[in-house]
């Protein structure tokens, strides 16, 4: 709609009119800038005990937890009316960042038209008996207080890896981009220590939240009996201690208000690149090792210059991957701390494994240089070293798999993740090895090697096609979940990939088919068409480069979808948010 507005000049209007004396305007503008609170009574002197105590006195325990006990939130669902004052009070009384909230309020609904049920649910950290955040943390930035059971986050210890965010099934730890660390609810432990109630407890108008002392054994039994809360993630994983009480019968069809919502998750680009490049590197070393075994068995051997290029490339790409990982950290300069959690954290173990991989690979990559410089490296030693590199690299990949598999997210289950990551090693490693063989072969163009290279390349292409096809089929299998009637996390992932993320998904499969099937076939036809033609190598190198790039792109997009299409478990959320 267009606005027909009369036009007025913005200035020179005032001359002929009676303008108020500037003194009044000036005075009012001046007055406006002074606050005038001193003239009113100050309600309370400096040193008064907390006044709100009269309301929360009965909402916190009188004593400290005893042996086998701990503090826990207790929520009276019948009293939670969904005002969300707890969220904002926690934010304000704890001095959180502008958008930071440690508590949230979701909604469960269901029933029938005759008897509908609407249940708001306030939730914060559940101070679990087996906190997944604590187990996953690579730097031991979490501690569970042995006396109170409160799960505390040590902000200065945190390096900002956000693995706890992935591990916690209740979406509790909150990452701060400005601070580069995670923070979370500590049950206002300092307040409890001096007999004050946590902010949320103080602020609930209906006294729906209290702090109780619970028996850990009872908490475990409740979790095992799945008595936690309808619509909440399965409690056996971390044994949450929050007690949700209600007298209302909960209908069987009770669902979180955001049950049908499926929004793409954060893509975590540094992690995408880290996984793709480390897996390409490990894959290249593994494939190279196998190729060498085959060549040695066939009496041939690779030229040192060739091997130099080969190993340096594989090693360099691996380093890129590891470097990318540090970009994910909020405080990358503290990355070295990430090894100390190795007893419980797969992330620490991954760092150690890839550390060993990088160290041995650097030595291994040096061997052809030594040979070129005139030193003899015993073939057995070299091969053994290669074996160690491949093994430690594979160990790193297994740790990568476990990092995600142990979050218990359906799309990241061990089978899916394992299959993807291991096949990625091959889908990325084979083209790299192929490219380097062809490139160095074109460079040296030693006719005696051509036959061997040609055979090798044909084998690599066929392997790649088989592996790529297997991987694409495994990936496409997710869409089978679209046929199911229940709204499982995997079905949600499938809905995301065929909905919000459909363009990316289509691109992934298109590139995957081209890189994994079409281009290898073109390479193969070259070999079969004119194996003896001296010029074929240049065009085939171009093809092989494309093949490598397509597979790199395809796997990168696959890994993007791995993060973006995962459905994170969480407490019931609010409608349409």
């Amino acid at each position, binding site marked *: *709609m267009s*606005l027909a507005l*009369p036009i*007025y000049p*913005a200035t020179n*209007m*005032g001359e002929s009119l009676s*303008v*108020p004396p500037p003194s*009044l305007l000036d005075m*009012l*503008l001046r007055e*406006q800038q002074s*606050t005038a*609170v*001193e003239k*009113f009574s*100050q*309600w309370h002197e400096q040193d*008064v005990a907390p*006044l709100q105590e*009269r*309301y929360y006195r009965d909402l916190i325990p009188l004593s400290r937890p005893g042996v086998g006990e701990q503090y826990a939130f207790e929520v009276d669902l019948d009293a939670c*009316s*969904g*005002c*969300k*004052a707890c*969220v*904002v*009070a926690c934010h*304000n*009384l*704890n*001095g959180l960042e*502008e958008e930071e909230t440690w508590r949230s309020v979701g909604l469960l*609904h269901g029933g029938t*038209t005759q008897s*509908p*049920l*609407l249940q708001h649910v306030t939730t914060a950290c559940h101070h679990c008996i087996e906190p997944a955040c604590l187990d996953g943390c690579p730097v*031991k930035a979490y501690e569970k207080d042995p006396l109170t059971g409160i799960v505390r986050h*040590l902000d*200065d*210890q945190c390096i900002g890896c956000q693995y706890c965010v992935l591990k916690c099934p209740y979406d509790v730890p909150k990452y701060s981009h400005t601070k580069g660390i995670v923070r979370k609810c500590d049950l*206002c432990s*300092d*307040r409890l220590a001096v007999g004050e109630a946590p902010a949320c407890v103080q*602020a*609930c*108008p*209906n*006294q729906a939240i209290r702090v109780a002392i619970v028996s850990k054994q009872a908490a475990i039994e409740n979790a095992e009996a799945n008595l936690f809360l309808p619509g909440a993630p399965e409690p056996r994983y971390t044994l949450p201690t929050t007690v949700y009480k209600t007298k209302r019968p909960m209908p069987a069809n009770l669902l979180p*208000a955001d049950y*049908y919502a499926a929004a793409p998750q954060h893509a975590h680009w540094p992690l995408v690149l880290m996984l793709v490049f480390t897996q390409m590197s490990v894959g290249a070393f593994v494939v190279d090792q196998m190729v060498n075994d085959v060549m040695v068995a066939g009496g041939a051997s690779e030229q040192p210059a060739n091997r130099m290029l080969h190993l340096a490339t594989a090693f360099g790409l691996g380093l890129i991957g590891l470097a990318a990982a540090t970009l994910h950290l909020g405080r990358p300069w503290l990355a*070295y*701390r990430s090894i100390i959690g190795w007893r419980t954290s797969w992330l620490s173990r991954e760092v150690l494994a890839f550390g060993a991989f990088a160290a041995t690979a650097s030595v291994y990559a040096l061997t052809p240089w030594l040979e070129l410089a005139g030193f003899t490296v015993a073939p057995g030693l070299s091969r053994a070293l290669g074996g160690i590199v491949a093994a430690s690299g594979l160990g790193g990949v297994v740790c990568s798999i476990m990092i995600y598999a142990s979050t218990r997210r359906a799309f990241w289950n061990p089978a899916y993740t394992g299959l993807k990551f291991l096949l990625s090693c091959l889908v990325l490693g084979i083209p790299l090895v192929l490219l380097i063989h062809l490139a160095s072969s074109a460079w040296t163009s030693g006719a005696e090697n051509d036959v061997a290279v040609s055979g090798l390349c044909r084998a690599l292409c066929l392997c790649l096609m088989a592996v790529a096809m297997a991987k694409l089929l495994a990936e496409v299998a997710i869409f089978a979940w679209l046929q199911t009637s229940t709204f499982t996390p995997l079905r949600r992932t499938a809905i995301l990939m065929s909905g919000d993320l459909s363009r990316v998904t289509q691109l992934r499969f298109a590139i995957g088919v081209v890189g994994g099937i079409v281009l290898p076939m073109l390479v193969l036809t070259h070999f079969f068409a004119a194996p003896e033609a001296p010029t074929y190598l240049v065009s085939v190198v171009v093809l092989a480069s494309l093949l490598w790039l397509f597979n790199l792109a395809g796997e990168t997009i696959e890994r993007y979808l791995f993060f973006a299409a995962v459905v994170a478990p969480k407490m019931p959320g*609010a*409608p349409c*948010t």
Partner: protein
Amino acid sequence: MSTTIYQAAQNLLGGMFHQPTGPLTAELLRNPGGFGLGQLPMAETPDATTAMTCGFCSTGCSLTIHLKDQSAIGLSPTTEYPVNLGMACPKGWEALSVLQSDDRATTPLLRDERGQLRPTDWPTALATFCQRMKAIQARHGNDSVAFLSTGQIATEEMAYLGSLAKFGMGMVHGDGNTRQCMATSVVAYKQSLGFDAPPYTYADFEQSDVIVLVGANLCIAHPILWQRVCRNPHRPDIIVIDPRKTETAMAATLHLPLLPKSDLTLFYGLAHILISNEWVDEKFIAASTTGFDDFQKHVTDFTPERVAAATGLNTDSLHDLARRIHLGKRVSFFWTMGVNQSYEGVRTAQSLINLALMTGNIGRPGTGANSITGQCNAMGSRLFSNTTNLLGGRDFQNEEHRRHVASILGIDQDRIPTRPSWAYDQIIEGILQEKIKGLWVIATNPVHSWINQNMLRDVLSRLDFLVVQDMYTTTETAQQAHMVLPAAAWGEKEGTLINSERRIGLIKKVARAPGQALADFSIFRLIAEAWGCGQMFERWKSPEDVFQSLKELSRGQPCDITGITNYQMLDERGGIQWPFPEHGGDNAAERRLFADGKFFHADGKAKFIFEQPARMPEEPTERYPFLLLTGRGTASQWHTQTRTSKSAVLRKLYPAEVYVEINPSDARRIGIKPEQRVLVESQRGSLVAKAFVTYTVQPGQVFVPMHYEQTNRLTLAHFDPYSRQPSYKNCAVAVRPAETHDGV
């Protein structure tokens, strides 16, 4: 020496790997805040505190402002205040953060030759304002300039505005956005009880044994009043009458999901059953009321069978409801927008007043026919805005009233208009008929909130001069204005607010307004000067000066507040309810009206007022088969969201986009899946919303929250004939899956 180096090295290395405390940990450390506040973040330790009334809704909570160097650094709810008892809703907790926003108006803005709003200075703005408005008046008559005011500014500012506009500038027509929420209660009370006098005090929530809530979702709209219900120790019977299963309905002991707009019939039917069973207080009726016999005849026809058919409830529940009211010793009736925003809202509110009167449930603890107001100062507006009523609840058409007001204000009686103002919708209509050419809008956002919004946008574009005075430049209405005047906000100025239970509370200046923004009070002073009528208001140099005048204007009226010495007294007492006359004022912190059974009509009696229920003007049809209900969405959203959308935390607590609640059976029938985008369409406009498929709305009805700009594209402009309040909660719409070209 070497051991020291070894230890230092060990400490360094240890610190490198293990750092349990440090600067990041320190950021979250808390100190005892003093002032009875308990622990507070270290950086936010106050050096003083002061308490003031919240500026969002009419509950009128008190917030303790934490001050450092004379400026607000935080807040917490005031523990002892008799309204909120140490609690606040999310809006109150975030009341200070919404003041910090990039779109605050910091200078006057004037639309330039290219149609862009450009900053200008105050002298130019004031001169332009007066020149344009005077030019319009010269050409089209004094009454061709009107104003639309608000329930969001202080009483003193409303009084200044109303007086300036009508006595100083010669306007006749001015109304407030309170028309959209409260007008119905005003008229209902005036006609029934003789004065606009909600009789209750919040303690009544705690003292009832039967609480009847009609069209009121306290849990979401008034969380602190729900808190008071929760503090009731008598295990009250809570009866919620609402088409939707709201949070409040969930928590009720009885929810009656009646058909929309069948409430008037229901309450007549209830009166019928009460009378048939002789469950009425004949003594009270005889002593304190008139018109009961006619009322009795009127409800004879409202048999349980007829009422059941009209309301969709069964006769058993009707009898059950009547029995509960009969058995209750202290029955209170509360209503909110479900009643007020109706084309027959006045009669519906009066049907509740009738029930309270006939059962003697008024004037005693835990009883009353009680309207829960919307905005923080709707009640101030009702008494002192000088819009519909002459100052102090008086009548423009009454010469005696005009003379009295003129003498108190020391102005010429001829300056007071002799005809009452047009109501909001009539002012809009006046623009269409080219009778209104200049409009001054203060602290309200009609382009978002007015019913049938598309038409309003068009109407406002016909004005010669539209001035919007607001704290933000981005409101939908400011964006359409020729001039924007930058206003200081709640917290940046002084004055008083009057809450739902008639409690007068203070607001204080605890923060600095951005740029050249000025308190509305100061803007009115400047305009008075620039207009040339500054002399008339010479005695009003501060809000407290106006307050002293308002006291005089209240003398002898039911709302007599002559006993309140000054602001200091309001501050020390934690607010004071009207009446509080100079002599014989009751000092109790919580007081109700009509304990003596005397009402404000000349004969001291309350009237039974009633009328035949009418059909809603736009019932669902084959083309538009759903009935659209609108209302509040969450406790974190306030009206048109000009303020609440400025808090990052509040934004996290409500859906960012408009959504529509629809029953699963309807959704299934028309092929709508949860979370799907759907087109909601009325004869007037359409919107695309996300579907929230839920059993809490009945089949055939859909619900869309009012806080989204699109909602009022759909609503039908129809009004209560007595209160002129828009009926927002009933119009026919069609719902279907949205195509992509529907403009997602």
